[in-house]
């Protein structure tokens, strides 16, 4: 057995995890600053220059807090659930290609952890597993708000998972592959459209799918306006009402890492990932992912929250039919070979 690529992948995954954690930490800072900016406030600015040390202070605070387990909690599940959430969150990033292969110390290193044949489905699978952290945490807390939050989350994630998956089918049809590396390669081509040279990003050929993916991804990560499972004005804090200390921080971490991972995936699938003008590279991916993250924050600062039934109605009555239409149209276009997309 050839151990070397395995070890390289492992090392890369380790680096990736740490980068994600760091990015997550500063994502919280960024979000607070941005929301403050949207809301005519200042935001955290005391801890370090521009409040840059705020995430560290938060981390210290959260870790040093007491870890409370409610008396009527299902103790084992209660303790494991946040870990589950946290462990599953960054797994999706493993299939994101961060660039072409580079040579480090004389070795060819691929800038992705794994390139599997079913990468996109793998991302969906990991996402669908992520709900266990929420549902088990909500159940195990023995609190009615938590239970309601868990119930909401279950229904929401199942519904939007479907939309998320179906919105990608158009891309699969156009590329004939589920591997993110392949999808990225297709997007690195140039699309010539009536004299215009455009990047062959799927944003251009699958705009409807992009919008659907965006909406479903926001719902999948439980962010506003789909943050029903943790709607603070209704359910206190939803499934993590009873959590405190570092277990709470695990949920928190998981939520933000999920956001980042989904942004990375969205940027790779629809915006050409590392493809960009001038020099391709991981910075383009970062810029694109940042656009998504900014969009997340923007949504949170702007939109009210959906109601549970409206949320379900949106998924099943609007987004799902649209996704199916998109698949049908894409299939027909591919079948008739109109355009060289």
């Amino acid at each position: 057995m050839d151990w070397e690529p395995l070890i390289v992948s492992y090392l890369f995954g380790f680096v990736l995890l740490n980068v994600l954690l760091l990015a997550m930490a500063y994502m919280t800072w960024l979000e607070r600053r941005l929301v403050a900016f949207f809301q005519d406030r200042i935001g955290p600015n005391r801890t370090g220059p521009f409040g840059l040390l705020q995430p560290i202070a938060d981390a210290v605070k959260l870790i040093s807090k007491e870890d409370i387990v409610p008396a009527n909690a299902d103790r084992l599940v209660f303790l494991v659930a946040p870990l589950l959430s946290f462990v599953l969150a960054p797994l999706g990033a493993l299939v994101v290609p961060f660039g072409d292969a580079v040579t480090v110390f004389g070795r060819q290193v691929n800038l992705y952890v794994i390139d599997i044949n079913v990468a996109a489905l793998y991302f969906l699978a990991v996402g669908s597993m992520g709900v266990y952290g929420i549902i088990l945490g909500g159940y195990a807390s023995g609190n009615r708000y938590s239970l309601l939050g868990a119930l909401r989350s279950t229904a929401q994630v199942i519904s939007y998972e479907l939309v998320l998956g179906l919105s990608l089918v158009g891309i699969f049809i156009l590329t004939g592959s589920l591997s993110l590396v392949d999808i990225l390669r297709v997007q690195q081509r140039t699309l010539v459209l009536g004299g215009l040279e455009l990047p062959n990003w799927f944003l251009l050929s699958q705009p409807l799918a992009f919008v659907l993916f965006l909406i479903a991804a926001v719902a999948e990560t439980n962010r506003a306006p789909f943050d029903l499972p943790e709607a603070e004005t209704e359910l206190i804090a939803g499934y993590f009402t009873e959590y405190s200390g570092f277990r709470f921080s695990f949920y928190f971490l998981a939520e933000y890492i999920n956001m980042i991972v989904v942004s990375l995936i969205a940027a790779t699938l629809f915006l050409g990932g590392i493809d960009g003008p001038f020099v391709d590279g991981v910075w383009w991916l970062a810029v694109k992912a940042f656009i998504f993250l900014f969009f997340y924050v923007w949504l949170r600062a702007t939109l009210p929250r959906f109601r549970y039934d409206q949320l379900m109605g949106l998924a099943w009555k609007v987004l799902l039919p649209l996704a199916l239409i998109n698949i049908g149209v894409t299939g027909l276009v591919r079948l008739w070979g109109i355009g060289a997309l």
Partner: protein
Amino acid sequence: MIDFTQPTPVLLSEERQITETRRELVLNMGPQHPSTHGVLRVRLTLEGEMVVACDPVIGYLHRGVEKLGESHRYAQIVPWTDRTDYVAAPSNNLGYVLAVEKLCGIEAPERAQYWRMIMAELARIASHLVWLGTHALDIGALSVSLYTFRDRELILDIFEKFCGARLTTNMMEIGGFSRQIPPALPEMVRDFCRYLPKAIREYEDLLTENPIWLARTKGVGIVEPEIAISYSLTGACLRGSGVNYDVRKAMPYLLYDRIDFAVPLGTHGDVYDRYLVRVEEMRQSIRIIEQCLDQVPADGPLMAYESNYVIPPHERVMTTAEDMQRHFIWVIKGFSPPKGEVYHAVEHSKGELGYYIVSDGSPIPYRMRIRSPDFVNLQSLPYMAQGAMLADVVALIGTIDIVLGSVDR
């Protein structure tokens, strides 16, 4: 629809028998809950996410203001009224002092009346701003609340300039105002009136046409006009259902009959209509304030004079013996209105705020009773909540616009 010809059975919540409802989930919302506006407790019986029954439980902020009224002299009660509905304190002051003035048969000078109107309308705007912010926050629109609180600060600045206090202003006095109007105040208010319409447009941009906002508010919490009347709702809760009742129009007090303004009425009676009505009321308040500022005399007395019921002006206390005596008595003993009972209502930002005072001729009221609008309006919550979703309940609490200090008194 309720059949008015038949008495409706009233079942009290605590005695309710839960017999065949094993599947229901009883959820205690509050008294510690982010969106119950203080210490309201709502017992919700849920079937899934649907509300089968909803019982508001109140009293967590009861301080016995009415009872306190029976042991304080008339002039001492004014600060207590501040503390009922603390987001629109001047309106509470106004209701009380008008009731006492009616009891005593005195009237404040014209200039004071105009300034009372200005302050009451500012209080209405301040209250509506707080309501809009929290209501939007309940429904999840985070930013609106910060915008409205930002603009409410301007009103509080005006209050501070006028009387020195921001929240519990204690600004109205029996007979008018004993302090002078700061010279810069009219311009300050005018500036505010120029600024606020822009701010309102900003809120409306964020909410009025927002599809999610529409989805969350349209068709939710419908109250038919008959039901609204039978619950004796007042204020925007009543007018949102299309019933034309505004104390300022129906029983004009102060100088509202000299002012040209319109009372907005809803057409569907849902949360969205009440939202529209309140936003429009803010605009109308601006119109009222501007007209008041145009009409108010620049000079003139601010305090009714030559009466035992009002505190004499300072320089006359210092210069004349009679006034010094009157001042002494007023302060030490208080004043004794004639025997009788009186009810006076004002249009508070939340509805009809009425003060009912019984006087036995002593300097202390025999009985004081506050008809607080949010207490009455809150009763419609179970009606609106039945069959609604859990998430609607917070929207409904928000739409009633309660301040627990006023509900519990």
